[in-house]
């Protein structure tokens, strides 16, 4: 029995990228028929380890045992042959193929498709029945929701007879309901004797779904414990290496005058599809309005329209002044002059120029500020660098080297650069999207504190996040967005994840009217 009890065993795995040691002598044993969680901050080496297991990278040293047998995994084909399947964070599906076609892609039995397709159809029916994986095999991928796409990825792995399934941050794009469904599927897989490895940074999921959990920190495996015998606080401490505050500490808000008033805001994308279908709300001074919702329901367009990146219709008033929503005066520069700072959702795409140094990024959006000009002709780069050093120190950006290009900083430190730049402009309104996406726990704590501090200075804050925990702990008022509309406003004290989850899925009507501050 003994040699059969372990599905995966890694012994002494090491991997270096140049001078960076991504994995250092990693040992991990995953018992068969369990759900095994791997957590760690960004850059802790989780993805590298899983990439080695799936054959994307070759380890510099160490051995991989699959089902007790020493196995070489030089490429992903060998991983599949060894019974390992992987569901990536970003799905790898062909948009204009059906579910069935995607499932057999790369696993066809012969040159004729029909035999493979009919065989796959039977297998899929069986799998769907066994694991609550109900997906219409003839549906086109482009018509499916994110939750369904993920199930297709799982089906793909199971069709290839995977006994060990690795999921990389699977819930980032799911509603709470869809996430629950996913965990039910995983439990079903486990009951059938399959082994699941779940990579996540969400402590709650680890606690809910896993049997054992391994914690990684800076390339090493810090601990492997039974989930039942640990606590979120203990895991967070292991991940960061010091005690962290998981709960956000904040005083009750003292909302003042209305800073931002949005009335019937509508946005169309470049394909003329209406993405924002008449959104109205207010934010007062000293208040955080949190927008909850599954990604892609119009939150990005809301930030883009208010931040001057997309033209819109409707009426937006900032401290009594109407803001132009298209044409002259509707660009990002004008918005900044009007007192709106914007930490965009996607810092790599919008918030930073990754090839620019830190000091060049600190001027981004504010290059017209008089303090950065030497004279009419030239910029004062020295002043800018001094300013950057000051901000880097205040926001504890590491390493504090203003010449380093933005791409060389970790996710958390990149975000600190953006947050420092935007908050230090002392705006009246801060738009902040996914403030802690891809940010390590230590930095999350810091960024949350900064947002609360800005609120307590009497500024208005619009917080958009797909992390429901974040919305619930940070917001003074919550609005839920679905399909380009606000489904209603809730007081975080009087609502729960269940109710918000229903609203995020488009169910539940309006309860508390047009959302005056409670």
């Amino acid at each position, binding site marked *: 029995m003994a040699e059969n009890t372990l599905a995966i065993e890694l012994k002494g795995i090491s991997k270096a990228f*140049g001078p*960076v040691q991504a994995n250092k002598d990693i040992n991990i044993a995953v018992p068969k028929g369990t759900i095994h969680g791997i957590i760690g901050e960004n850059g802790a080496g989780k993805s590298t380890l899983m990439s080695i297991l799936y054959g994307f990278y070759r380890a510099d040293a160490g051995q991989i045992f699959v089902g007790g047998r020493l196995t070489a995994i030089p490429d992903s084909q060998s991983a599949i042959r060894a019974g390992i399947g992987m569901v990536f964070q970003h799905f790898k599906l062909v948009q204009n193929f059906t579910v069935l076609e995607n499932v057999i892609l790369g696993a066809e039995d012969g040159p004729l498709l029909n035999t493979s397709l009919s065989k796959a159809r039977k297998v899929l029916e069986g799998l769907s029945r066994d694991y609550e994986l109900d997906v219409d095999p003839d549906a086109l991928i482009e018509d499916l929701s994110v939750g369904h796409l993920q199930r297709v990825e799982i089906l793909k792995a199971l069709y290839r007879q995977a006994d060990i399934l690795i999921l990389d941050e699977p819930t980032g794009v799911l509603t709470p309901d869809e996430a629950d469904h996913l965990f039910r599927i995983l439990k079903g897989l486990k009951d059938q004797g399959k082994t699941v490895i779940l990579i996540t940074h969400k402590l709650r999921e680890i606690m809910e779904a896993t049997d054992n959990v391994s914690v990684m920190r800076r390339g090493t495996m810090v601990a492997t414990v039974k989930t039942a015998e640990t606590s979120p606080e203990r895991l967070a401490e292991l991940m960061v290496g010091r005690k962290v505050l998981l709960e956000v500490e904040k005083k009750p808000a003292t909302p003042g005058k209305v800073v931002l008033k949005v009335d019937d805001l509508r946005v169309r994308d470049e394909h003329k599809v209406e993405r924002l279908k008449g959104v109205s709300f207010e934010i007062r001074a000293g208040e955080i309005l949190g927008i909850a919702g599954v990604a892609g329901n119009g939150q990005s367009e809301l930030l883009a329209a208010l931040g001057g990146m997309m033209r819109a219709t409707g009426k937006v008033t900032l401290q009594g002044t109407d803001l132009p929503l298209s044409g002259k005066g509707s*660009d990002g520069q004008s918005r*900044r002059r009007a007192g709106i700072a914007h930490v965009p959702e996607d810092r790599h795409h*919008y918030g930073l120029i*990754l090839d620019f140094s830190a000091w060049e990024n600190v001027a981004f959006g504010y*290059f017209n500020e008089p303090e950065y000009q030497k004279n009419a*002709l030239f910029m004062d*780069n020295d002043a800018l660098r001094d300013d950057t050093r000051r901000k880097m120190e205040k926001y504890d950006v590491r390493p504090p080297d203003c010449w380093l290009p933005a791409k060389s900083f970790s996710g958390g430190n990149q975000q600190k650069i953006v947050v420092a730049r935007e908050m230090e402009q002392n705006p009246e309104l801060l738009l902040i999207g996914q403030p802690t996406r891809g940010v390590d726990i230590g930095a999350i704590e810091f960024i949350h504190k900064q947002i609360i501090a800005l609120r307590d200075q009497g500024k208005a804050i619009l917080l958009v996040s797909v992390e429901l925990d974040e919305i619930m702990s940070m917001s003074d008022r919550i609005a839920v967005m679905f399909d380009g509309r606000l489904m209603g406003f809730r007081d975080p004290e009087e609502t729960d994840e269940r109710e918000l989850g229903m609203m995020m899925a488009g169910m539940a009507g309006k309860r508390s009217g047009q959302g005056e501050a409670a």
Partner: protein
Amino acid sequence: MDRLPRWADVALVPLVSLILAGIIAALVLLSIGQSPVEAFRVMVDGALGSAYGWGYTLYYTTSFIFTGLAVTIAFHAGLFNIGGEGQAQLGGLGVALVALSLDWPHWTLALTAATVGAAVFGAVWAGIPAYLQAKRGSHIVITTIMFNYIAAALLVYLLVDVLRPAGQMDPASPRFPEGAKLPALNDIPVINLIFQKAVPANVTLFIALAMAVVVWAILWRTRLGYQIRAFGKSEPAARYAGINPVFIIMVSMLLSGGLAGMMSINNVMGEAERLLQNSSEGAGFIGIAVALMGRNHPIGVVLAALLFGFLYQGGAELGLWTSIPIEMRIVVQGLVILFTGALDVMVRMLLTRAFGLLRSQKLGAA
């Protein structure tokens, strides 16, 4: 993950690329029964072995600095200006119209006015594709290529039917007035101690070098350059920062076209002293290679322009003194462009791997 040390990235990569290009060129020469050693000797002797050779090398270099800078500034805005050739030809038209417009009392006045004329004509010629790109989304690579042909056709028409003096056989403008004659390096005091024979390199060289400084200052010291570079790196991010894409596309292309046009002071006013058909002789295209090899930095552009100046002059010497066909010059240039431009990534990858190995061996030894 592995990264090259900066010195290797800046100096070693182009050097290795050049050596590889040289090796292949040598093999080609061997295969047609010529001696590569002899060919190299003739090239170096002819282009760099005498002040006279340098006078030609620097003349070509001057043109290439302008067109290289033109490509560089557009490149930083994320725009690939292939139209340097056409812009240079239009710049030549600007120079000719200015030079022929009056009897210039002194060359400094003529030079100033001709510089403006060249830059304006080149800029306008680049401005049309820029406008089409900015407002209509017509791809600038396609439009600038087409504008090269339009420019060539336009100049044929103008030189044959409009500018050609009655009774002259070749399609060219009349000779410029004496007052528009630019001093060559052999006409300038002190410098003429070095250049004792008449050479085509002229005062435009100093304008080119000054422009390299100006381009550097614009790109890295002004708000405009900051916006150009930001826009070039990431258009969505530029939109987030409130940078106006139309403005950046227009301004960077106007600057680019202006620089390409200014090249014509060198060849039209400084050397030919009249406007000839196909006056720019491909220098607009060489500018692309120069910018690529110079890593889109003005210092790199000046050095790469010097290299291509050497290849041009050395290649011409090959045709004069050896039985190596003149086309070999084009082969060598092609190989240099291929290795320093297109295969640059390959060389960098190999070197990165070599450095990585070296480093891990050092770690192992320690």
